[in-house]
């Protein structure tokens, strides 16, 4: 019964080895400079061509979901920082959004603006770092990476002066934010945003028409849109395949419907399209930031009547999702009326985007596997939780 039910169009292609001799089976990872963390791929090679590829992970499994079911709702907020450790503020927002959905908590306007500003800054620094790591894996020895990190430092300095920590921000609360973004903070943010367009121009100057990048990225790692949708791919990888699905536009969570921004789409679904989609998304984020920093109103930064700790939501469940820089980050909480959730589930974008890694890499050279893997943009903290 089982085999006949499998459709063939959404299964990995079967590649025959056409060389003579045995297949070479290597384990790429878990200690590997290019696997973005402790990640292993069991590849079977025929010469340079990949015949079989099985991803193996779980080396960073820290049972987030189990911890979520033992500590309270507020205590889980610093743990969500550590999921996608590059983008802790968007993780916080997704969790706060889900709990607010579970209890029916409204968020004041100023808090929504602050959340949007911080989320878009997070998106910019994440995309810049991803492109930097991608070029690093292609052999660019860190030059674009260090340029990206130089700008990232400015954004992280903003985060540190506001939340206290560069990476593990623990800033969002149910019903708003932990502290207010003062006028000094907003002016510092405006200064950073004013300097960013020049950086993105320089970045594009360096990379976009670079012949090496084009030769290594165009036509490699192609994903068809139907397969991308069926495999649950979200984020820049989906949009590079040509599917117009951005949760900021679809769900219109927060106050994203007030900002005018476009959603960049790719045509071919290859690595070069993913790179371009990320660069264009950085520019769109700048547009949102300029609008948000101009329009942010005065007001409370947290709902004064919000219950932040020690509360017991009514029995029920909620699924909240946001457009995190890596894809759709969702949280699914089932409450049984106690102080901690009965079931705490994280829908990790990196984990699900890895489903078609095999499809993209079969038949390619082993050198392309590293670049394809870099373009998927995963973070092991999210994959393994």
């Amino acid at each position: 019964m089982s085999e006949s039910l499998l459709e063939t169009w959404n299964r990995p292609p079967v590649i025959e080895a056409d060389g003579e001799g045995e297949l070479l089976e290597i384990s790429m990872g878990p200690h590997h400079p290019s696997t973005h963390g402790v990640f292993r791929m069991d590849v079977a090679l025929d010469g340079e061509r990949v015949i079989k590829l099985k991803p193996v992970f779980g080396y960073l499994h820290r049972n987030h979901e189990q911890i979520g079911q033992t500590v309270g709702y507020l205590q889980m907020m610093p743990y969500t920082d550590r999921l996608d450790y590059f983008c802790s503020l968007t993780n916080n927002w997704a969790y706060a959004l889900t709990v607010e959905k579970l209890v029916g908590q409204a968020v004041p306007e100023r808090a929504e603006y602050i959340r949007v500003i911080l989320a878009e800054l997070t998106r910019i620094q994440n995309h810049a770092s991803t492109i930097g790591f991608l070029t690093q894996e292609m052999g660019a020895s860190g030059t674009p990476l260090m340029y990206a990190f130089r700008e990232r430092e400015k954004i992280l300095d903003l985060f540190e002066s506001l939340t206290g920590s560069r990476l593990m921000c623990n800033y969002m609360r149910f019903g708003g934010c932990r502290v207010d973004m003062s006028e000094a903070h907003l002016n510092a943010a405006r200064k950073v945003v004013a300097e960013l367009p020049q950086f993105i121009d320089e970045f594009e100057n360096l990379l976009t028409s670079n012949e090496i990048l084009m030769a290594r990225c165009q036509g490699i790692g192609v994903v068809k849109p139907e397969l991308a949708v069926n495999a649950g791919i979200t984020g820049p990888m989906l949009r590079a395949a040509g599917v117009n699905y951005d949760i900021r536009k679809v769900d219109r969570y927060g106050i994203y419907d007030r900002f005018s921004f476009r959603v960049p789409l790719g045509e071919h679904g290859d690595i070069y399209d993913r790179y371009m989609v990320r660069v264009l998304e950085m520019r769109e984020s700048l547009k949102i930031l300029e609008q948000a920093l101009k329009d942010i109103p005065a007001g409370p930064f947290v709902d004064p009547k919000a219950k932040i700790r020690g509360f017991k939501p009514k029995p029920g469940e909620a699924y909240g999702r946001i457009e995190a820089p890596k894809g759709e980050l969702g949280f699914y909480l089932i409450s049984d009326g106690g102080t901690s959730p009965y079931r705490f589930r994280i829908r990790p974008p990196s984990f699900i985007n890895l489903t078609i890694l095999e499809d993209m890499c079969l038949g390619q050279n082993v050198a392309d596997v590293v670049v394809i893997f870099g373009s998927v943009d995963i973070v092991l903290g999210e994959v393994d939780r």
Partner: protein
Amino acid sequence: MLGEGLLKGLAETARNFAGSFVSKERLTTVQYPEERHPLPEASRNFPFLVYDGADWEAGLRCVACQICEKECPPKCIYIEKSKDKKPDYAGKLQIYPTQFDIDISVCMSCQICVEVCPFEAIKMDNEFELATDDRFGGLLQDRKQLAKPNEYYHKIHPTEAAEVDARLAEEKAKVEEKARAAAVAAAAKAAAAAPKPAEGAQPQ
């Protein structure tokens, strides 16, 4: 022309290289440990206990209410209460912790203990050079290592410390005001209750 993109990229790199000799923002390396990047005021690393005055044991603000112990997400705080009491900043007798351990190899610097403390006793330090080669005991900070004076708190977080001091002074003023009002009322009551001399005694 083939190679145009590469040349554009090389021009970019050359601009950054030459620029790093002239403009400060292109040369972003901080020569640690000779140079230090200044930390922003809100920066946090691990918690510490605040004490007022000169004697750390007598001035420790913590009253061992154990709220921070309960709210800590990875449960890195361990508190043991005392059997006797000592006066706090407003003069009220409170119990104090005889043991207050924070395991900083477990602490995740989330700052929830600071948010929930009702007595302004635990605050975030920004000291990060705490590396040691003793894996189990070296990263376990006890009460004495954690206790730091209020002046130190003012040095690292000036605005926050000023706000906390203002709030505590207000609390102290309220307590003293209440005590004075109670004393006045008690004195008035004592005067009214004492027998009035020679008024009731009628000449026989």
